[in-house]
């Protein structure tokens, strides 16, 4: 296997001897490319945003902005990265840089290279096209959510928005736009001490069988935080984010199957509306930067009680396909979680895919209560699926996050709903307020969480989305 390397701003640099825990950000900065900044080391501020050439859904390559502070640099072996330094030249600023500079989008400048990269990714979005402006879309088609993972303490954001909305289409001879028309770098198998990217699923499972203490990494949006903030130093890291077997997305009359390593941004694009409840969730999940890395496998892999995917998938009665060297098994998601950050998944077992049975509920709704509108984790998440026949609820599935040690089904509420006249759900909403055992913490009081449970159902009933 060739020794690992990374192409940064057009120059290929070896990654020899780099430890598995070294993040792309630390590596870049230690290499003298200090344009990408660290503001938090946990995916919150976006100062570390860089562009990575990823396979696209509508073009062979898509420049994708990622939090460099979370990704192990070895996970980028064989890949192409562009930082703010690689965009534009002193005499000829990149269009994004030009607009940011002339519209006052940079004050202290510390957040700026990250904003520039996030903005450039949206600048190059192949299907960005002029249209009717909305509060969160420019007339140039720029989707402001592309900047949702970038914090600025100086500018008040409006000059940055002005810059974003002033961007034209990339020039015909724009090199990075041109790069999107050619295939993205393939995932190179990597095998260096402490870090491995196996070529396929059997190789990955063999590795996991061999190293029971190996740590699996997909998008690394959770793993990176463990490394940076809690000092996790795994003896062996196994990267699974590009395993072809974990990348399928298929929709049939019986089942929707989503590969565990498909990023959330891709999930949205590739499902193309096939799972309306996911379309309600995904825009509220972290930020675009995080969604460009985060996967469903990673979200369920942590077993976190506040992960947002679980309530939604519970409401869809989904199951997980678990695979190990011993073979595959399918486990209902409702039976998957066993306790705080614990599940039935054994060491050496991977989540290969998520299965959502068809038909999905006729009406779905999702409410995420968080302290900040975007870029925040849930205090409470409620996902609801119901079938209504002649104004009467015939089936109800409700998934809850943030109200117990694990994500749970709201069974009592489901029972209360069946037979009820829709959307007259006040009685069921009272039952919902009593589900789980919400806690008091500095994010929200237990009383508030309970109040929100009740309100969620009322709100969802009032604004149901036909599936």
């Amino acid at each position: 296997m060739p020794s690992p390397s990374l192409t940064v701003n057009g120059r290929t640099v070896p990654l020899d001897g780099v430890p598995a825990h070294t993040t792309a950000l630390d590596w870049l900065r230690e290499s003298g490319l200090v344009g990408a900044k660290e503001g938090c080391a946990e995916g919150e501020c976006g100062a570390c945003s860089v562009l990575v050439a990823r396979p696209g859904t509508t073009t062979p390559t898509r420049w994708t902005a990622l939090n460099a502070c979370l990704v192990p640099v070895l996970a980028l072996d064989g890949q192409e990265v562009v930082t703010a330094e690689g965009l534009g030249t002193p005499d000829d600023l990149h269009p994004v840089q030009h607009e940011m500079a002339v519209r006052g989008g940079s004050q202290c400048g510390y957040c700026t290279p990250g904003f520039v990269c996030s903005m450039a990714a949206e600048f190059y979005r192949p299907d960005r096209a002029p249209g009717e402006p909305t509060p969160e879309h420019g007339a140039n088609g720029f989707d402001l959510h592309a900047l949702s993972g970038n914090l600025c303490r100086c500018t008040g954001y409006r000059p940055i928005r002005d810059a974003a909305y002033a961007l034209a289409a990339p020039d015909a001879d724009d090199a990075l736009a041109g790069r999107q028309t050619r295939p993205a770098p393939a995932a190179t198998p990597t095998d260096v001490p402490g870090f491995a990217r196996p070529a396929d699923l059997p190789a990955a499972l063999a590795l996991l069988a061999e190293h029971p203490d190996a740590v699996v990494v997909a998008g690394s949006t959770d793993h990176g935080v463990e490394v940076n903030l809690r000092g996790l130093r795994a003896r062996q890291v196994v990267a699974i984010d590009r395993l072809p077997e974990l990348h399928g997305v298929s929709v049939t009359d019986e089942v929707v199957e989503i590969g565990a390593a498909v990023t959330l941004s891709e999930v949205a694009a590739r499902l193309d509306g096939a799972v309306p409840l996911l379309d309600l969730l995904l825009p509220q999940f972290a930020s675009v930067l995080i969604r460009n890395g985060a996967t469903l496998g990673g979200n369920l892999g942590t077993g976190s009680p506040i992960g947002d995917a679980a309530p939604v998938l519970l409401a869809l009665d989904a199951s997980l396909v678990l695979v190990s060297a011993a073979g595959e098994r399918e486990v209902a998601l409702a039976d998957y979680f066993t306790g705080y950050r614990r599940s039935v998944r054994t060491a050496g077992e991977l989540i290969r895919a998520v299965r959502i049975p068809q038909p999905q509920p006729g009406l779905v709704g999702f409410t995420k209560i968080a302290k900040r509108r975007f870029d925040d984790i849930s205090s409470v998440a409620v996902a609801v699926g119901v079938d209504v026949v002649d104004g009467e609820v015939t089936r109800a599935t409700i998934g809850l996050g943030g109200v117990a040690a694990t994500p749970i089904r709201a069974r009592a509420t489901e029972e209360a709903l069946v037979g009820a006249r829709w959307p007259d759900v006040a009685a069921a909403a009272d039952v919902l307020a009593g589900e789980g055992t919400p806690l008091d913490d500095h994010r929200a009081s237990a009383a508030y969480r309970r109040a929100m449970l009740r309100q969620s159902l009322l709100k969802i009933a009032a604004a149901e989305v036909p599936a």
Partner: protein
Amino acid sequence: MTTTERAVGSDVRRIDGPDKVRGRVPYAYEHELGAQSVFVAIVQSPVARGRVTSIDASAAEAVPGVLAVLTHENAPRLGDVAEEILVLQSPVVQYAGEPVAVVVAETSEVARDAVGRVRVDYESADPDVVLSVDRDDLYPPEQLMAGFETDSVIGDVDAALAEAPVTVDVVYETPNQHNNPIEMHATVARWDGDVLRMWDANQGPHNLVPVITEAFGITEDQLHITSPYVGGAFGSKAYTHVHQLLAGMAAKVTGRTVKLELTRQQMFSLVGHRTPTIQRLRLGARPDGTLTAISHEVVEHTSQNAEFAEQTATATRLMYSAPARRTTHRLAKLDVPAPTIMRAPGEAPGMYALESAMDELAAELGMDPVELRLRNEPDRDPERDVPWSTRNLVACLTQGAERFGWAGRDHRPGVREDGRWLVGTGVAAATYPTRRRPSQARIEAVAGKPYVVSIDASDIGTGAWTTLTQIAADALGVPMDQVRLRIGDSRLPQASGAGGSTGITSWGPAIMAAAQELHDRFGGQVPADGVTVTGSSGPGDEAEQLSSHAFGAHFAEVRVDRDTGEVRVPRMTGVFAVGRVINTVTARSQLLGGMTMGLSMALHEESVLDERRGHYANHDLAEYHIAANADVGEVDIAWVDEVDDAHNPLGAKGIGEIGIVGSAAAIGNAYWHATGRRVRDLPITPDKWFR
């Protein structure tokens, strides 16, 4: 000079913009990239009050690559400052997070690993961190920050309140807040012989000189601090903190170039915060809205090791007329890290409370809150009894009302709905003192070459690189490209730090004085062999004879989700009277950034002290929220025509802080107007709708 109008007052773009958007300007930590640097990691005390009983560093010292482990037992002894900044000089622990040891190692990874191997035992007592008005140990500080008197009393306030036909008596609270510039605090330090060389993120190298020279027992000539680009500061980078001293020590002990960057988490205990406040406001008025009494009593906290007394009620001393008036400040000395200045210290929390109380009074009177303020406009400073240099609050209020569409507002609360949203509007006034501080500048002129203008000013994102170049160009009567500005270096002529919105008023006139000197001596003709001139500026008689302040008015629309309590601010208008505006682009940025930080203060910012352990529970950006892009709606900003020549020759006033002052009150008042409920403790989070 005839050319003065050319650059000043224009919309010249930031000269540092192109490099910043390319990621090419060097911040503190990015200096000395080629050096064989060593790295520092800090062991922080989990105990808020107690003492270190033993430290075993042997396991850490044994890690290959560890060069030194410094503790109170072996760290170099520092000068007097060590009493105020706790820096490994004693086993006593006075706040949670206090450094009790540092590891210096060849790589940051080794340092971090070794930190986990330092064994520290503590003797500890329960921390005392809860601020309340009932504490029996509240005390009046000798004076407040910036030299303000602790209390001010005019007339018989209690009698006036007792007699007033209409009164409000309310308590407003603001929480602990953290500055959180996006660039984390960082220092690179090295001893070149007996000279301490530092590259540091701060608000003016000269600000740090007294403490660092005192600590290490060196002269000013033996300290050289460089800080040309700073990634935001908002007060936390104004003064010397423990990490700069630790870096200096580590460099001394190892003889190497030391790099120390605090983590975001460490910034919550090591570089200061804004004190929480509990403020009782009592206002008395006649039925026509004329104020007869104003009382503003403040309780706030300070730390065991250093006293910091925020000047929370000082704006109340000048905002409105009233014959009877009182402001007081009382402190509780708690087991917390030392508070510090944070954007508009004093005015930000104090005006939040005063302007909220004024809104309550307007409601009590059944009066337009804009009208209430207009009716109590003082024609002289009501406490100092001196004239204003300029006071244009009335213009701000009336122009703001016009721009916002205030006319015809239905003043009743809780009566407007738009679907599930309850809708309201609010207003609040703003003020911030105008001051100048001693500063010097130097101009080197060589025929045929650009002028080199040197001053130890600091650009923490404010735009000083650009505005000072504009001022110099106009003063010299040349285009901006004929000026090379040098700032952010302690070897440059001494200037005040970037704080208190004093930069432009202090540095600008110093540069102008140097240019004047050049003009007076050589009539604008640079001698063939070149020349160097200096100029200085500082507070003059205006400080005594006039009352000088910037003013402003905020208007906000708030929407509250009836079902979830979510609060949105779709639009804000701010109109300011800030003297001459040097650069319309950077001025707008400063005001917009300030207003957004006010929005952030209104809706999000709160550092939660864990009462049992005494540390800040939400010590990172995931849990300490600041406003994000989606929080900010449409923001309309304008300024009134104003030139304050009586205060300084530029006619300018500071602009960096006034934007945050009052904006939280406007939002809180709009929340009440939307919902009919007052939230009197910031931030206004959704859960407060349900209590």
